[in-house]
């Protein structure tokens, strides 16, 4: 079972630490982007939530040869959704003297854009879904992840927990790739081994 854990100051890919040269937060994501040579300039247009999901899936899905885009799903579960960009967008409309709403910011004020960015990058035509819940509940996250397999055309799912809270609070990500032969119990145990404290 492929998996990745990202916290503000560490990345663990398939149970092995990734060298992040002691960078933290958004700087760590940019560092990994450069270090791994991910040539995708759109990365710099993305908001913090999308950058987090992008780096995770670039590392997790590798050279993508094992992904069948027609039968692969992306499922993102978190708490904060797009709150970072929501706040940023609000700053552009709250003051009538300084009113400059921008479509390139507004589009990132949706929790599911990260699933779309991952689908575009990896040519995934299966399901993309975004759910928000009030606590990191391993069993519920697993249930939502596996719910995509209820669709008979879906054979594999990448996703799990992704949360980029407001301001500079630490982000968290726990992603796995599961198939029809993956045991949900194994995934619940993985999430239990890497618990998340939501930064409210």
């Amino acid at each position, binding site marked *: 079972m492929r998996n990745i854990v990202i916290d503000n100051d560490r990345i663990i890919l398939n149970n092995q630490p990734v060298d992040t040269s002691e960078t933290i937060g958004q700087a760590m994501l940019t560092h990994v982007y450069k270090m791994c040579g991910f040539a995708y300039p759109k990365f710099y247009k993305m908001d913090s939530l999308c950058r987090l999901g992008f780096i995770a899936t670039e590392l997790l899905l590798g050279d993508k040869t094992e992904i069948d*885009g027609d039968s692969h799903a*992306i499922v993102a579960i978190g*708490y*904060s*959704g797009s*709150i970072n960009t*929501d*706040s940023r*967008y*609000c700053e552009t*409309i*709250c003051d*009538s003297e300084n*009113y400059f*709403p*921008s*479509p390139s910011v*507004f*589009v990132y*004020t*949706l*929790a*599911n*854009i990260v*699933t*779309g*960015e991952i*689908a*575009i990058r*990896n*040519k*995934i*035509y*299966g*399901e*993309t*879904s*975004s*759910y*928000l*819940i*009030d*606590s990191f*509940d391993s069993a*519920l996250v697993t*249930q*939502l992840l596996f*719910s995509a397999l*209820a*669709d008979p*055309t879906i054979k594999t799912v990448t996703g799990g927990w992704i949360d980029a809270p407001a301001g500079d609070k630490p982000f968290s990500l726990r992603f796995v790739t599961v198939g029809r032969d993956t045991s949900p119990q194994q995934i619940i145990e993985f999430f239990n081994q890497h618990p998340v404290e939501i930064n*409210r």
Partner: protein
Amino acid sequence: MVEIIGHNITCALGITSESAYKEIASGQCGISLHKSSSHGVSEDFMASTVDTRTLPSYSDQPMTRLEHMAIHSITDALARCDIDITSPDTLFILSSTKGNINLLDNNTTNSNIHPSRVNMPVMATFIARHFGNSRQPIVVSNACISGLSALILAKRLIETRACETAVVVGADELTRFTVSGFQSFKALSPKRCQPFDKDRQGLNLGEATATIILRHTDNPTKDRWYLDAGSIHNDANHISGPSRVGEGSYRALTDVADGLNPHDIAVINTHGTATLYNDEMESIAIDRAGLSSVNVNAYKGYLGHTLGAAGILESILSMMSIDNHTILPTLGYHDIGVSRPINIVNRPLHTDANMFIKLLSGFGGCNAAARFRKEVVS
């Protein structure tokens, strides 16, 4: 099987399904002009709004306007069916794009509401607890397909017996946040929207809450509605524009129409936002799926685009119209303005079919289709 046992629409044209349907079936439009100055945006716009002063009061606890609309919608839907709302086997699902986003806007005063309620899981929990339900609710926030995504999730969780009953509420209100955003995209029409019409100039926003209550059953009942299939597909093309070949909608449509005779489908109720690209994309998807002979309509001309409520509200209207053996016209549509020859309904049509397909698409490249069927055998 997943049976629909109750519903409510709370919108500009009524605060029950029956009252809203009555207005819509008689051709009423809830969309009116809003002045820029009264909303703090740069241009006037057309939208439909709910007069929340007409809603009953439900609690002494402070709640936002949107929570009030959602609680009204759920309360009314619950009154139509017999379920144990407090049971741990009953799951709440909230479908919303922006929830209480107004709490972030400095110019709105909601000082008696805790600021954490801007987070949609906190809003959903507040609503579930209002009804005495202590199970952790799920928020589905999948842009404009949220309503169908939420119904599809409910179906899956009921089928795997993760819950017996699901209360699915869609809720989004008209805010400066969304109006300014859609204006920045130049997506709003200066007049009432005209889905699929050659003169269409964009969408109108609308606010609404809508509820569908679903439950597991082994034995279908005559004249009841069932959610038979649902499918979600991404275009893998662009985060803010639909696929030029309708890829995701085409795939979702073919999944839910698989094995059906097109004659058995009363109508495909499209997203039909009346933007140039959306309606064109849907016509391509319907044509590619071999469904161009099926009747097609859109309801955005009555209430505008109600975002997270749209999938639920429009599914309810479709069920009610088929209960009345009618296919509702596409208000605002006169002359075809899409490249594919699809059958857009522009006057009330009689139907004896008992099945329809609901189609939606949204930012992030997501598309959803669902198939609803009315049981005809007793």
